[in-house]
């Protein structure tokens, strides 16, 4: 047994109610544990118990006992506990000190007074374990997010912890970067037998690797077997939700498991007839041959697309393919060097404020701009800036924010903050919504909320473009898919074709049941 939590109850310094309640849990050595649950349920707080950040760094009221590797985690100084329980955070940029990879990994070892030969041996070992030997002499600022996150893991591992704690390590990364980090964590666990705790929303990658799942919700924690957890959790991977509908036993967690265990049952499945494509109206946005460059780097190289009333267009493609640049060019945050742009068939107005009155853009991290004391003031501020005729009460109700109208945006959970920020950006209800990675780091409840808002918007003649990497979320809402690559349109297909079996971006369910995209599309 590597850790024991005994009747732990914890309240943050400014908290009115406990963030964690009466948690009683043991953790066996060498296990791979996924910590899952709804946003603001207490997952990150739970994780911080194991290295003493809660309550040593956060303060607040603490009851109970936490023992990690035989030491009292609430009393052992973090300097010493860091040797036992190493932690990697969400944001790879907010956890590095030195500017070269080798120096960054060596920094903590130097502070411990290790001999250079011992340091070199440890650095070689962790670089090899994480397959980043080629990055040894690189500067951190030249690395991608996935590479930086692996360097952060290496820096923690070099101290030789027995317990590795990861707080949403892939939430800030694109799919390629996330895949590299997941592979690295999986390999480390397999090769070194390192006890690993991962807090994560994107369960499709981590759940198949887990020995246990700790479900944290409303401050309570319960340990479950992964399949038992997937059988009940709303945010389980699509293949598990399909298996749940079909009553498959054992419940598959990946398409490969489903094929291997239930080939006959899958072969008998038929898709529900897909709904008729919703009628589309007049052209709202027309972009033709847009070219845009940042210095000598071309971001758009002749990109074209048309968006019509009633459409939800998923804009997909690898990093730096031009997705964000296209959205920025539409609202005037970037000036294309060539090409034509039309709003409703006419030349767009000049200026960001005027253009975003017609095509409202929600950029990445919109919550950065929240600054008012309450949610209501934040929405009122947006309505006043736009001179909108909509009443504050109506806007709050439309965006489902009435219940939290008097709360301080900074005290809300990440998911709630994201909703407030999206509402603040689009409170004036422009006909076109442009959303840049709105589901990154979002919990299932926020994704469902956004999908519902988009359906209401397009049903009333609006349209939307959503830049995203999330195939499953896009398949649930998009009517069309445009993939960019190198600043050009790679393909422009109906969503049923793009995400379907044989399409370029098949969903998990489409791989199992041709003709269906989501678990709900399969006839049972």
């Amino acid at each position, binding site marked *: 047994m590597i850790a024991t939590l005994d009747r732990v109850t914890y309240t943050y310094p400014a908290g009115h109610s406990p963030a964690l309640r009466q948690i009683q849990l043991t953790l066996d050595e060498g296990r791979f544990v996924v910590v899952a649950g709804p946003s603001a349920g207490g997952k990150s707080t739970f994780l911080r118990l194991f290295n003493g950040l809660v309550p040593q760094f956060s303060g607040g009221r603490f009851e109970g006992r936490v023992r990690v590797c035989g030491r009292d985690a609430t009393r052992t100084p973090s300097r010493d506990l860091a040797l036992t329980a190493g932690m990697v955070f969400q944001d790879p940029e907010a956890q590095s*000190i030195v500017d070269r990879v080798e*120096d960054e990994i060596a920094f*903590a070892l130097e502070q411990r007074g290790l001999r250079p030969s011992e340091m070199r041996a440890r650095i070689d070992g962790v670089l090899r374990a994480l397959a980043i030997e080629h990055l040894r002499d690189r500067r951190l600022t030249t690395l991608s997010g996935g590479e930086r996150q692996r360097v952060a893991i290496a820096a923690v591992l070099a101290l030789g912890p027995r317990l590795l704690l990861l707080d949403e390590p892939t939430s800030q990364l694109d799919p390629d970067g996330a895949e590299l980090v997941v592979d690295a964590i999986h390999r480390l666990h397999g090769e070194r037998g390192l006890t690993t705790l991962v807090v994560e929303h994107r369960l499709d990658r981590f759940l198949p690797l887990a020995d246990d799942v700790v479900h944290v919700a409303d401050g309570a924690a319960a340990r479950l077997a992964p399949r038992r957890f997937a059988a009940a959790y709303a945010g389980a991977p699509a293949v598990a939700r399909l298996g749940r509908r079909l009553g498959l036993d054992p419940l598959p967690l990946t398409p490969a498991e489903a094929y291997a265990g239930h080939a006959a049952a899958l072969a008998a499945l038929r898709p529900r007839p897909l709904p008729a494509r919703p009628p589309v109206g007049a052209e709202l946005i027309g972009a033709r041959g847009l070219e845009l460059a940042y210095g000598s780097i071309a971001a758009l190289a002749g990109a074209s697309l048309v968006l019509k009333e009633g459409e939800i267009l998923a804009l997909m493609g690898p990093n730096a393919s031009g997705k964000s640049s296209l959205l920025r060019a539409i609202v005037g945050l970037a000036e294309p060097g060539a090409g034509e742009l039309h709003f409703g068939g006419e030349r767009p107005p000049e200026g960001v404020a005027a253009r975003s009155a017609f095509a409202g853009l929600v950029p990445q991290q919109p919550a950065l*701009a929240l600054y008012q004391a309450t949610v209501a003031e934040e929405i009122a501020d947006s309505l006043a800036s736009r001179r909108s005729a909509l009443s504050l009460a109506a806007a709050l109700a439309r965006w489902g924010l009435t219940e939290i109208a008097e709360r301080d945006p900074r005290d809300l959970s990440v998911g709630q903050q994201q909703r407030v920020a999206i509402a603040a*950006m689009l409170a004036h209800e422009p006909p076109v919504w442009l959303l840049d990675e709105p589901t990154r780091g979002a919990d299932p409840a926020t994704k469902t909320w956004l999908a519902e808002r988009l359906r209401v918007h397009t049903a009333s003649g609006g349209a939307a473009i959503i830049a995203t990497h999330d195939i499953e979320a896009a398949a649930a809402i998009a009517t069309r898919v445009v993939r960019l690559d190198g600043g050009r349109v790679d393909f422009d297909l109906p969503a049923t074709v793009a995400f379907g079996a044989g399409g370029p971006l098949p969903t998990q369910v489409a791989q199992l049941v041709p003709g269906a995209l989501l678990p709900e599309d399969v006839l049972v």
Partner: protein
Amino acid sequence: MSTVAWTGWVTLVMAVALTTTNPLYLTIVLLTVILVAAISPKTEGAGLGIRFMLVLGLALFVLSIGVAVINTGSGEHVLLTLPRLDAPDKLGGLSLGGDITAEAVVGGAIRGTVILSILLGFAVFSAAVSPHAVLRLAPAVLFHAGLVITIGLALLPSTLADLQRIREVQALRGRAAGIRELPAIVVPVVMGGLDRAMRFAEAMEARGYATPPPVPAATRLLGMASAPLLIAAAWIWFYYPEIRWMGVLAAVAGVAAVLLWGWDIARRRRTTRLNVEREPLLLFVAGRASFLLAAGAVLADLGGWLPTSYNPFAGLPAPEFGAVGALLALAPTWPLLFLASAEGRPSEGRAAPEAVLQ
């Protein structure tokens, strides 16, 4: 050039500039720094930093002259006379305007040249050496102060990026640019910066950087005692010349207390280095000699033995020019010997631009 050598050089520039009021020597120091700035290796971004510091230094040079001429009023060589405004005695008796004298202009120019030389020297140093490399050189006793500065520097670029993002988001919300909209920009930047700093501090705590080993009470007492001892030493030295020997005793005691405090902390925080910068013998000697020369210049100035002072208000005499002062002013030229042979190569601290763009 190594980090130690650059640190020695910038220390020497600062010491010589601060201990010299002779305009001839100061001009030599300034020209020396400009020459080193021109030939020192720098990335594109670092070049921008030097230009910024040059503009700031020139602005402060002009401001220094401006402040000197409008509130001095003393001197015999009157250039022109402005209307005079005297503040009441209760407010310090400050006078603005009146006679604008050549002495005041020269005095302001001397102060401005000191500021310009130091700013430019630091810009060159910052362009050539990574702050992280300096942090790794910091003695154990200064580790936490260095860590705070390094973290601040690490957060600066992300804060500037936040500023740009928030301006864009507010424009997308339909807010017009202008002074009334400042809170919509400043509040989120400050809140975001605090939030980022907290996350950074938490990450450092989790890695065990933030918690030093415990220091015993006796050591802390030594550290606390050193400050009043050194202040007392300076006080006695300048205001009670008849008992200067007591000032010397207090200074010795203060320095001893600082050294013991630092030694004990360093002993408890045993650190090592993975990579030690290798220096040719000549560079090693030049870097360390710079520290010694800087310390010697400061001590000689305190003792009044340095022939580099000049008082323009003593009738605006022609500044003297002697061998000692000239050699001291020329001392910061030594990096030219090493840079001339390594021109075009990146320094150890900063990568070349192409490496950054990989």
